[in-house]
């Protein structure tokens, strides 16, 4: 009896400690974001005099008005298109590639995986110039289509790496019984492995989605005219040779983050579903 009471107390205490830590972390995590939003409502001089941490005098909406009446909407659409297409392509072909590496036994399996891991080590800046030349050669330069290839390619190593390790955890029995039932590898892939990899795919969607949404280097190298720029480049409009209109930039950045937050709320929902569905029971 005493042991159970002791356990219950221990459990309660640990819960309290856990909640306190969780709240602490929450504050740390969202405070900068809160300040970003607050500062977007300030007027430039106000921010410079009163500092970043003061509350805005009034909700100065002009920053948002200026941002939205600029090219923001077209940047936004470009980013969305690039993101959606890149993600769809990436997730599909990464899954395709991870399946054999996680499951099949063939001679080159390990070397190929090692090669892919090695490719994770590439700093992306060294691919800038060759990719730039290629984009020009193929007539893709200064269009958003030029971005999709590099984005997908640069994300492949990490994605395959993560997905392979997830797929390895899927129990063999499922596959084996399907084989016995006469399913081909392709059927197994589409009908079983893909669905079972949902948590992994969701993780990848989130991770790569954010990277692509915020990606800057390729975007500025491969595009030129304003109509082809993506969101991260929007910040330019408010940076001159010697000065920065910081609150405007904060407004731009807030507007850039919001879609991601909304998307995440929906995507993580899928993650939860994957967790509680007991999918592995298949």
């Amino acid at each position, binding site marked *: 009896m005493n042991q159970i009471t002791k356990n219950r107390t221990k459990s309660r205490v640990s819960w309290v400690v856990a909640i306190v830590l969780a709240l602490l972390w929450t504050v740390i995590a969202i405070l900068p974001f809160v300040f970003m939003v607050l500062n977007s409502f300030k007027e*430039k*001089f106000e*921010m*410079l*005099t009163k*500092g970043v941490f003061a509350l805005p005098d009034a909700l100065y909406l002009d920053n948002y008005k*200026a941002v939205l*009446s*600029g*090219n923001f*909407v*077209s940047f936004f*659409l*470009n980013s*969305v*298109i690039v993101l*959606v*297409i890149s993600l*769809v392509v990436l*997730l*599909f072909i990464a899954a395709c590639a991870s399946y054999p590496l996680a499951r099949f036994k063939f001679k080159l399996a390990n070397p190929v995986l090692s090669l892919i891991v090695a490719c994770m080590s590439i700093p992306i800046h060294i691919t*800038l*110039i060759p990719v*730039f*030349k290629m984009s*020009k050669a193929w007539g893709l330069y*200064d269009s958003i289509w030029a971005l999709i290839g590099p984005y997908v390619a640069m994300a492949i190593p990490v994605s395959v790496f993560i997905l392979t390790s997830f797929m390895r955890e899927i129990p063999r029995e499922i596959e084996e019984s399907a084989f016995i039932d006469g399913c081909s590898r392709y059927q197994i892939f*589409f*009908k079983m492995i*893909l*669905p079972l990899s*949902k948590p992994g*795919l969701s993780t990848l969607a989130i991770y790569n989605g954010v990277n692509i949404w915020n990606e800057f280097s390729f975007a*500025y*190298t491969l595009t*030129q*005219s*304003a*109509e082809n720029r993506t969101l991260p480049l929007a910040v*330019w*409009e408010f*940076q*001159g*040779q*010697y*000065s*920065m209109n*910081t609150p405007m930039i904060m407004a731009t950045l807030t507007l850039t983050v919001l879609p991601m937050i909304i998307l995440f709320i929906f995507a993580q929902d899928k993650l939860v579903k994957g967790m509680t569905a007991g999918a592995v029971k298949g």
Partner: protein
Amino acid sequence: MMKKMKKLAVIILAVIMVGTLMACGGSGDSSGNTPGETSGNDNSADVPATENVGSDENKEIVLWHVGTEEMDLAIWGKAIDAFNATTDSGYTISSVSIQNDTYKEKLVIAMSSGECPDVYTSWSGGPMNEYIDSGYAQPITELFNNSELPDRLLDAAIEQSKYKDDVYAVPMMSISISGIYYNTEIFEEYNLEVPKTISELEAVCDTLVEKQITPFALANAPKWTGSMYFMNLAARYGGLEPFQEAVAGTGTFEDECFIKAGETIQKWVDKGYFPEGVNSLNEDDGQARQLLYQETAAMTLAGSWYSGLMKQDSEEFAAKMDWFPFPAEDGSLVDSSILIGTVGDCFISFNCTDEKLEAAFEFATKFSEEEVVDFMVELGKIPPVKGVENKLTDETTKVIMEAVNNASSIQLWYDQYLPPSVASVHLETCQEIFGLTKTPQEAAKEFQAAMEEYNAEKEE
């Protein structure tokens, strides 16, 4: 399954969006212009060739520049419009404005893939020379001498556009020299007078420190801001010869004047003349200006673009600020009219030849024409043209211009003048001087070593 369906839906959605975007792509741009943008700008990658009907060649001159802010865009726009409207050459200018930070990289990428724009700007000095040596800037000496420019432009500006005796660029935009801006109200409050010598300056600083005001607002994370102090001190201690000789390889950066400059800076750091954590403050984020506006700092040594900057931030506050040139060393025979800065700030170079070059050059001459000059002055710039002082209305700007006219010579900022590999060593060691993590002697040694290495490699 579900995931596949979702993906399909997403793809269809994407296709619809693309279709919509393309459909309104044509009309969409004009509604999306930020105020101040004029026709010659970003969206005009497909500006049609004009007058010359019979020509099948692409009569488009591609121009790259760093004017992304309203003011600058307006200036570029005005000149571009003037050119496009009046030229007989059959060429039109289409321009791309690129943000300052990433401009140099983008230019490098373009050049290295054979896509260098026809006309582009630089800040002269080391990088421009590199472009010239690599074949991306054409000499324009003849065109230049045959035009009105030698009469219109300031001699100093023309000098800065030269490399090995040929003219390679057309200077424009604004004269930017460094000097000390100070808060007149604070000076009045504590009965401070504008210092004429360095020791007077130090006395002023000491008083300010006593009153718990930081003398100099300095944000030295980007390193070039602190370099201003170094350059001015070195110039006051030894004139310009030590520097020029060091670069040429006949002198050295371990010369006395440089060491003394470093020592003075460290003395000043110890005395509290600079804000705490000076090396962590970010200039672009406005952390130096913040100190000025909050009136916790009284002065700042900055380039004269600060006038326009402060005016933009707050006209009211800008009215409180006045300017004086960096004071002379007591009892020194060194010419104290020497200024550190740039006579132009924007130098237009040309990567085209023959007809195109002539047309592009014609465009560049627009910036020294009356109308455009007046426009620029209105917006707070000081175009490097003769007689510009007569057009100036702002008091502070007039004082600055006076100093410019009195200057016996103007030395370009070290980090622009020097080849980039040496410039970066200078900036890094200078920052460490401020951080008290290197002695001036050590810094000078590294600086000199970098210069020697560069000169040695150049020989190869």
